[in-house]
């Protein structure tokens, strides 16, 4: 009987069920898609303000879609704190590293340190690595295994982008924008399919 009461497993399953709806994928993917497309229209500054709005919309969507079907659960303070702190830290570091990568892509003098030159040359590969590690860590923190697949997808898309997009004719924001938009479309698609399955599995009570 003691084997049946694996509390860690129950906790993990609770977290997984909470994110089974695919809304997280849709919102992150939607943001990446918007960021990617706005880099082509030249309105990229708008996308820096979008996370705050996305967070509000995400919590509203949870209230309307998830709670009436799966039910309401309030995680312990420790778990909420753990997820919040770790996710913030991962996103902060990822943002910082991405910005560094972007700056190095905006043109470096020939006598720049070798590290900067290397970053400049393999910029998209570097950014792909940042995306991959970010998804990997978020998947681990939030116990969502499908975030691992986005890690692999990010690597593949940025790797392809390195060969097809990273040319002197494309400005840096756009060379980041195209892979972001592609990853965004994939995430929204997978998220929508999870949402469809979730709605079928947990019909709303009459």
């Amino acid at each position, binding site marked *: 009987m003691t084997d049946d009461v694996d509390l860690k497993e129950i906790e993990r399953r609770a977290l997984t069920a909470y994110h089974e709806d695919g809304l997280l994928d849709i919102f992150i993917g939607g943001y990446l898609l918007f960021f990617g497309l706005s880099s082509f229209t030249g309105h990229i500054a708008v996308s820096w303000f979008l996370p705050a709005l996305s967070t509000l919309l995400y919590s509203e969507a949870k209230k309307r879609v998830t709670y009436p079907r799966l039910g309401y659960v309030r995680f*312990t303070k420790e778990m909420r704190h753990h997820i919040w702190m770790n996710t913030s830290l991962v996103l902060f570091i990822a943002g910082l590293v991405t910005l560094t990568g972007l700056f190095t892509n905006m043109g470096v003098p020939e006598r720049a340190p070798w590290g900067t030159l290397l970053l400049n040359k393999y910029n998209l590969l570097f950014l792909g690595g940042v995306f991959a590690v970010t998804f990997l860590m978020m998947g681990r923190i939030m116990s969502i295994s499908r975030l691992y697949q986005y890690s692999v997808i990010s690597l593949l898309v940025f790797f392809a982008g390195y060969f097809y997009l990273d040319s002197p004719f494309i400005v840096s924001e756009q060379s980041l924008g195209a892979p972001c938009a592609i990853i965004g479309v994939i995430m929204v698609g997978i998220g929508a399919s999870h949402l469809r399955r979730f709605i079928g599995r947990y019909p709303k009570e009459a």
Partner: protein
Amino acid sequence: MTPPPNNPDLPPVNEIDRLIHEPARLLIMAHLYVVEGADFLYLMNQTGLTFGNLSSHMTRLEEAGYIEVEKTFVDKRPNTRLSLTDAGRKAFDEYRASMKGLFM
């Protein structure tokens, strides 16, 4: 199987909380133990218990003072929220300790 009366090394089986030991109630207690609170629908989905089954076990646990049941309205619809009381948390800890003691 009951332990021989003169064997002090074996933990007393009689001390195991039978209210928690019942599989459905054990499942409910375990699910509530890892969260701060959850509603009836969430527990039904996670434990796989039917409405009637969960309802009757919920009443037993509430009567024992192990869980707290709060009935509210969300968007004009009735909503039943459950959480473990301090006594329930302590009882569950003791239950786990005694079960571990039995099999160690």
